[in-house]
């Protein structure tokens, strides 16, 4: 009798331990997925920074007199590359997006430029990179939401408290129009 009870207790202990391991691992997986998603955003942002000098040079070839816009874009790009912290970074990126918008407006006025293969290819790359930034952010938010839901729901919330898992912040867009900007088509 006593031995049977002993076995039952051991069995329960094993089941509980396995559940804890499983839940802990699922939390680790979700956290890593979200972190990976966050670093993906950075990869795409860097790609955008790399594309800009090329674009500026191409536009310069056709529109030499628009110096002001070029300087604006170059400065915004430098600021965005140096920005530290999420808030400062997203603000700098927004400014860069706006500066690029102006560059596009300038390009509109030069039909030769608009027809140039090089410019079109760069334009597509840049637009796609901006899409990728948006989609990377979207996936980060999805991942963060999945993690946060897990952290709040039973029984994972107990494990989360036990091991000190922190909920992740969502990526917010201040300007509702900012999200639509990348899909603009200049073809």
């Amino acid at each position, binding site marked *: 009798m006593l031995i049977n009870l002993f076995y039952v207790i051991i069995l329960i202990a094993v089941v509980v331990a396995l559940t804890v391991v499983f839940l802990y691992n699922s939390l680790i997986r979700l956290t890593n*997925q979200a972190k990976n*998603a966050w670093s*993906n955003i950075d990869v*795409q942002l860097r790609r955008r920074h790399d594309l800009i000098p090329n674009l500026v040079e191409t536009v310069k070839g056709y529109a030499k007199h628009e110096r002001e816009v070029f300087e604006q874009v170059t400065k915004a790009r430098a600021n965005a590359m140096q920005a530290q912290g999420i808030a400062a970074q997203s603000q700098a990126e927004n400014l860069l997006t706006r500066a690029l918008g102006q560059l596009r407006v300038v390009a509109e006025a030069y039909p030769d430029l608009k027809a140039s293969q090089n410019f079109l*290819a760069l334009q*597509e*790359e840049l637009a*796609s990179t901006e*899409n*990728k930034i948006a*989609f*990377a952010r*979207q*996936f980060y938010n*999805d*991942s963060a939401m*999945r993690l946060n839901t897990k952290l709040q729901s039973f029984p994972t919330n107990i494990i989360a408290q036990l091991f000190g898992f922190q909920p992740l912040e969502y990526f917010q867009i201040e300007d509702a129009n900012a999200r639509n900007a990348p*899909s603009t*088509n200049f073809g």
Partner: protein
Amino acid sequence: MWEQIRLNKRRSVYLVAAMALLLTALGFVIGEASEPGAGPIGVAIAVGVWLIMTLIAYFQGGNILMAVSGARRIKKEDNPVLFNVVEEMVIASGMSRVPDIYIIDSPALNAFATGRDPEHAAVAVTAGLLTQLNRDQLQGVIAHEISHVVHRDILFMTLLSVMLGSIVMISEVFLRGLFYGRRIRRSRSSSRGEGQAQLVMLILALVLAILAPLLAQIIYFAASRRREYLADAGAAVLTRYPEGLASALEVLAANAYVPLETANRATAPLFIVNPLQASGLSLGLFSTHPPTEERIKILRSMAGGVTSMPSYLSAWARSNPAVKPQYTNGTPLFNAAQTRAPSPQMSPSATVASAVPLASPRNPAREAFDTVRKAYNYKFIDCSCGLKIKIPPNYNRPTVTCPRCKSVYKV
């Protein structure tokens, strides 16, 4: 979304189990019919055939499919836009690897994906698709294909199609052997009972050999249709822009008459729209895809709202009510506004706008809502255009304009 995928996985297991049962039953009955007591050998042969085919499909399926479809692999320089669109969807879905990208040189408009898991995936689109769709539409199509990959639909459909293939093959061999050869040996002992048992088995085997391929096809195509809906929903979640896929499907439907020569009945379920439509091979139970208009309708009805799995499902439920939707001039009678019961606090303009287009007196749901409205002191005006304008009690302007034909009525 993830719950849906999990639920779907469970259903998939049932479907695979049903297929497997059919396969073993076929093997057993044919074995018994050939020689009493040879049932297990029949099962072994059936499973053996299936196993070999599965292994080939698992490791080489993608390459075989691409070869059969006449697809050629492209590099980024060949079509940067297509590559970018695929990369965007890969990022949106969190996949770890960009799938190989193929182009099928055909004027038909279609696309499909292969590969047993996201790490071994490949996407193929036709040249016609690239010329006819704009970037947003292409993105919708690619998102649909990437959803198939992420949901592991391809592995599942490959498994099922191989089972289907095995069942068809075994049935064919048996039936042909029956008609052209003398493979059926008389039972060695001449006792009556055993001879009769063999005869029964023979009849059973005949019936099963004829029916099993049909049944297997019904299971296969049912699974395929379900997965098309889910991939549509997945695409909407990935792009957050259901209209892209909806308008793409419209273009695809309009060009369905252009045949894709390299597609056949076995590969048809893999495509985004049925490639065999041009030859008129899709009806009801034997259709590999849900009707395209239906898919467009569901996507459109979620376009305004929140883009998520639940919203797709409710849109799907709206378009599949117990009362089948009736069509008049191609306009769906059921729409989003109608299924929401009005509350008396609603602002006047909102309720007037929710007046339902194309009044139909036979619609029980609408009648029920009208009864509720009457109870809340709503007034009704029958417009000359056939629209029944519903005016809430707190509407305080003297006139009302018909939202459809713009004629003005006194309240």
